[in-house]
């Protein structure tokens, strides 16, 4: 973590004394060091007049760290703010992580005793989607193949070997109907983004992207509502993204690429439908037909996404924002989306019960 933060600061051309705030992602239950943010301040040798803390909840965490670092700058409490975090799932017992997940995504007295892990909720989305829209598991699996194709060109990605639909389908089941390659693997990662005002960025002479819009919505459910509702509609995604697009003064059609938090194949399909990128029940076609590929009309998860770039949950949001930054600065190499100027990012918690969306804009 310390060397990643030092690298990020060096790339931004800022010295430790310039950093006024450090917003860390909440640590996973496998982290031994508690009080992590203050521990890291000593490791990094930082003294801050703004806020130093850990923030976030579940999948929202990375986006919240970014959001709060931006707020520190916007409020005038920091000239430079860091959004950073580290996850080492490989250090912990799988049981610890699973048990945490089961208790985090359910009412501990009324849902967790049934032992449904976070990906189990997406599995039930998938079962419902296959049933309602008469779609096959193979059609949903195309998302894993498409994302792997992107990750092949991403040095940060956890899995880079090309994949076929057949290989996806022949894996052992994990949460039916989803198999091993349709759900995220355990992942490690560390990341640090540097935020400042646009005036400061401009005068630094370093390349930068700006936050053009931001939106958030919580639908008031924890995983599912206790009354009948359309579980696969993800209304919070639509409301948060609409808010972010409005703030940026643009329409979805203006977006050149999207990094959408999607731990499972089905999640990417559902969130692209929710934000009206594709009609309901039709989102599965996009990966198979190449629409969401790098060279397609609506590139989604050019990093490889949770399934291939990797999914260290608390920092996945920061990795998504990093991918947009690389794309908008035309630093994405073989996975570069040509002429990319506007990028959309989402992250979420629960079954997309809440969504945090950001629109990033590249140099004009």
């Amino acid at each position, binding site marked *: 973590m310390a060397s990643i933060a030092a690298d990020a600061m060096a790339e931004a051309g800022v010295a430790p004394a310039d950093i006024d705030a450090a917003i860390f992602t909440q640590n996973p239950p496998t982290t031994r060091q508690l009080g992590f943010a203050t521990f890291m301040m000593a490791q990094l040798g930082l003294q801050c007049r703004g806020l130093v803390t850990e923030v976030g909840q579940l999948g929202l965490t990375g986006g919240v760290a970014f959001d709060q670092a931006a707020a520190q700058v916007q409020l005038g409490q920091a000239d430079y703010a860091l959004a950073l975090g580290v996850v080492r799932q490989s250090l912990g017992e799988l049981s610890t992580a699973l*048990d945490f997940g089961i208790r985090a995504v359910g009412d501990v007295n009324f*849902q967790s*005793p*049934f*032992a449904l*892990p976070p990906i189990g909720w997406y599995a039930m989305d998938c079962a419902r989607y296959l049933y309602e829209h008469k779609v096959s598991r193979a059609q949903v699996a195309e998302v894993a193949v498409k994302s792997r194709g992107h990750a092949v060109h991403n040095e940060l990605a956890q899995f880079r070997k090309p994949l076929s639909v057949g290989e996806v389908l022949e894996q052992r*089941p994990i949460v039916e109907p989803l198999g091993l390659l349709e759900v995220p693997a355990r992942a490690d990662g560390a990341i640090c983004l540097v935020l400042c005002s646009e005036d400061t960025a401009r005068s630094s002479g370093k390349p930068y992207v700006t936050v053009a819009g931001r939106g958030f919505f919580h639908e008031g459910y924890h995983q599912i509502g206790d009354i009948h509702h359309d579980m696969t509609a993800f209304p919070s995604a639509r409301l948060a993204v609409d808010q972010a697009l409005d703030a940026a003064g643009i329409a979805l059609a203006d977006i050149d690429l999207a990094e959408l938090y999607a731990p499972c194949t089905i999640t990417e399909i559902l969130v692209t439908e929710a934000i009206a990128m594709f009609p309901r029940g039709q989102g599965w076609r996009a990966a198979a037909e190449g629409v969401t590929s790098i060279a397609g009309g609506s590139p989604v998860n050019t990093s490889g996404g949770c399934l291939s770039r990797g999914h260290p949950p608390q920092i996945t949001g920061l990795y998504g924002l990093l991918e947009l930054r690389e794309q908008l600065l035309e630093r994405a190499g073989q996975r570069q989306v040509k002429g990319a100027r506007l990028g959309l990012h989402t992250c979420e918690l629960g079954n997309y019960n809440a969504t945090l969306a950001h629109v990033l804009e590249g140099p004009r």
Partner: protein
Amino acid sequence: MKLPQVELGLRRPLPIEVTAVTLPFWKSLESGQFCVPRCKHCDRLSFPPRKICPQCHGDKFDWQPLSGRGLLYSATKVHSSPSIYGILSPVRVAIVDLEEGLRLLTRWLPSGADPCLDCPVQLVITRHPDGHHYAAREARTHT
């Protein structure tokens, strides 16, 4: 209305905290019923039981027994679980839409065939050495 009862023999995987708010529900299972709170102010049913009504914030409730009849909204089978949940093995979970308008997550007791979405299901009370719990299974016409 009395619900079918199933003897499962094994303990429930997590210790369940019974509070003043949820006690009437757990008591109802012991008496063979599945009772949920109905808000005295706005009539909304809710589950799990809560201190206040999510619709109007009313805090007075009557307890209504449910028919136990509903439709299967979705289901999954989980192949990787921490060892403390091993006694559920295999872990099968369902989302059930009850005819009174409530939706809940529950254990699924398989009948052999694959779960059939939008098919009729029946809530059952399960008996364990450490107390009562509940599950859903395919509806049988003779119950």
